[in-house]
């Protein structure tokens, strides 16, 4: 959620039960403004909260002018002081995939994972147990990255690509109509496209290169992975929540 429209977005997202307490909200608003100034980001988004056993991580992301560029992720334990997280690498993701269970809530906590590794000593090959320490910070980074890659979505038309390359927020985007909002094809994955090149030429002919430069949600497998749950507000706005189930907790609100 954009730092500017944080309160409104929180209200809309409250249907799933997760919200922020007043003191967190207040401190978020102020601290995100400061983060934006200090790190000179174009936009700061409040990504969400990861629950831990002892404490929760509050995650924010900063974007530069180019919307599709790598986002800088920051975390905080108290919504006041933010620390930058390193960008995710493949290695990190692979390493953290072996860790299961809840997050502790302490970024310096280390998970121990014993691995059997074959060690060659001379002619003999024997297996040694190596205990690999994985820091919780690493795990945090990779989890955020995985969630983003899998489920970050954006409605079609909200971003457009200029011939120069950078992607911009489309200020003439007025939202999706009700019927469009129910269709999965009007949403894209908010990441570098993976499947676009696999499309046939016929399909590509229908696409508008300035708007359709990301993967659509339509072709995600399994087909019923994402469902549209409609929640209606009494005024004339309609909130459509697309719930990403396999991460059980990511909600997107389109108003």
């Amino acid at each position, binding site marked *: 959620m954009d730092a500017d429209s944080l309160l409104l977005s929180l*209200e*809309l997202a*409250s*249907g*799933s*039960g*997760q*919200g*922020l*307490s*007043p*003191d*967190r909200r207040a401190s978020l608003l102020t601290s995100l403004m400061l983060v934006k100034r200090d790190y000179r980001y174009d936009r700061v988004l409040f990504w969400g909260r990861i*629950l831990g*056993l*002892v404490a929760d991580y509050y995650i924010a992301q900063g974007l530069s002018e180019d919307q599709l560029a790598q986002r800088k992720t920051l975390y905080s334990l*108290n919504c006041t002081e933010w620390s930058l997280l390193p960008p995710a690498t493949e290695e990190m993701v692979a390493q953290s995939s072996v860790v*299961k*269970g*809840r997050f502790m809530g302490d970024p310096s906590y280390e998970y121990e994972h014993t691995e059997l590794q074959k060690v060659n000593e001379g002619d003999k090959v024997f297996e040694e147990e190596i205990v690999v320490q994985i820091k919780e910070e690493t795990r945090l980074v990779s989890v955020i990255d995985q969630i983003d890659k899998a489920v970050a979505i954006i409605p079609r038309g909200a971003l*457009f690509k200029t011939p120069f390359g950078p992607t911009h927020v*489309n*200020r*003439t985007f007025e939202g999706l109509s*009700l019927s469009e909002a129910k269709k999965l094809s009007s949403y894209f994955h908010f990441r570098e496209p993976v499947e676009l090149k696999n499309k046939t030429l016929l399909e590509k002919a229908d696409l508008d290169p300035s708007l359709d430069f990301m993967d659509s949600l339509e072709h995600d497998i399994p087909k019923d992975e994402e*469902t549209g*749950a*409609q929640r*209606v*507000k*009494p005024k*004339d*706005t*309609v909130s459509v929540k697309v*719930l990403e*189930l396999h991460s*059980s907790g990511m909600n997107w609100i389109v108003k």
Partner: protein
Amino acid sequence: MEDSTSPKQEKENQEKLGEARRSWEGKTAASPQYSEPESSEPLEAKQGPETGRQSRSSRPWSPQSRARTPLGGPAGPETSSPAPLSRREPSSTPSPPAPARQDLAAPPQSHRTTSVIPEAGTPYPDPLEQSSDKRESVPLHTSQSERNTFQQSQQPKPHPCGPRDVSYNNAKQKELRFDVFQEADSNSDCDLQLPAPGGSEGAPSMLETAIQNAKAYLLKTSSKSGFNLYDHLSNMLTKILNERPENAVDIFENISQDVKMAHFSKKFDALHNENEMLPTYEIAEKQKALFLQGHLEGVDQELEDEIAENALPNVMESAFYFEQAGVGLGTDETYRIFLALKQLTDTHPIQRCRFWGKILGLEMNYIVAEVEFREGEDEEEVEEEDVAEERDNGESEADEDEEDELPKSFYKAPQAIPKEESRTGANKYVYFVCNEPGRPWVKLPPVIPAQIVIARKIKKFFTGRLDAPVISYPPFPGNESNYLRAQIARISAGTHVSPLGFYQFGEEEGEEEEEVEGGQNSFEENPDFEGIQVIDLVESLSNWVHHVQHILSQGRCNWFNSIQKNEEEEEEGEEEDEEKEEPDYIEQEVGPPLLTPISEDLEIQNIPPWTTRLSSNLIPQYAIAVLQSNLWPGAYAFSNGKKFENFYIGWGHKYSPDNYTPPVLPPVYQEYPSGPEITEMDDPSVEEEQAFRAAQEAVLLAAENEESEEDEDEEDDYD
């Protein structure tokens, strides 16, 4: 451009007036409305300083000129410079061209706003009184007041014109103004900013034709799309001016695209559109009914009744506390749920009601209310499990009824464990659900132990429809409403906690012989409860106790001994019972009694089952203690020392560090005693049959041969 301070500039501005009008030619056609707002603003803004100036006769145009300056265009200088020149000619000359131009000017100007006109117009008469052209100027104003203001506003004079015109200022101002007006009117139409020719009538006509040509070109309809550039540009500029986006030039192409797309939307459809029954409207209507509850008969008396009975919980208060903890639905939704609960308590005879929580589903969500009916007002129960039992018996009977030749199977369906009576154990409360506040509340059926047992083994998301089938392995006996009820029972048993001492056991009611749990079923509020410090609640889990009975593996809270019912097969029954009794006995121990502290809860893989927090670290004196369950993510409890409340919001699943794997199918059951009757044997193949037949024939032949041989032997003997 707004150099209102120096007199020179003021004069320049006046000159710019005329220039602006010329230069405006190129602009007005494309953006008829465009210049107006801008012009009106500067005009109005300058009314103040301008009126001050009006005392001087030469000043009346300054506002307009200033107004025009912002809109100045490149053509301004060119057009304006010849203008004064031309105007120096006898004053009569302006009149012929003026009307001609006025014709041109008329159409686009007709829709100009006239807000500025009166103000702009007033200064004019003053300076013009002295000029012979005054009468022309006045009618000009009146008739073309719109156009004037428009033109004036739309003719911002660029600075380049200034210096050139300074020389003309002094003597010619009045004439200039007048001329400028007339010419300005006529020039409004021109798209192009052609330099105004020097005053002769031939020049305007060239200018005119050039303008008309350009305009015709712009109006040419595209063969592909049916648009023309003129309209498109005017639409675009209209849109930009109305919306005033920042950095419009950067998103210019997008705006252009949007305008083109907007052309395809239906503007006027001859077909009547019925008011679309958007789902939003439907739900809004239903929710409106919630808000109209107050208008019942006998309002006064009802109010008293309501206040007296107090079955309705204070949902908003609990929501406030939960919000401190960062949990809960938004205020609006909570209030609507509150009203829906009130509706529930009004329509049903309810003793106590509590907002249990919200269970999320794929298509729709469930809002769950935990309800206790008044004594003796239980609703009738649907007899479902009897049917199930009959079915089981029926199958075994069917087997027996068939031919006796069939082997009898060992299989006996396990005795269905009967559900607990209502108001006891897992069925202590009745639950109502609805999808949205405003929709009717549906009562969930009571839960059967078998359902709980199987619900423990499966993991399915709720769809939101109560009649949806639950397809799973092991097969769930029931549909989604039963599964929902089972999960609610499990969650309540696992996560409903209260501060130690809040509840206490009631008076001893004598020993209970039937059930041997060793615990009490009932509890009641402790009137002497003094509250526990919030800090204590956070630090130690032993200050919280479960106040809902634990559900045994059997699926019930109170142990049901199925042995007593089976008196027929004692031998086998005893064996089985013995096996059952031991786990039974162990079960008794493991099933913690009521009001055990939650510090006794088991851990999951080294993760403590509960997490405690203070709601706020910044203001600890007013913070509340918040308990989060790690076993059932989404279950929360809070307490501020004296008050407490439990809440669930989530998907309705237990936490498991590993992904769900369905249970493995059991091996095929040995139903029948093995023996030759049921042992499978291969059918003899053709060769075997033939061999068998051959063997049989051989035996026969052998028998015959023996006889024949004997005969032959006898015959041989004779030889």
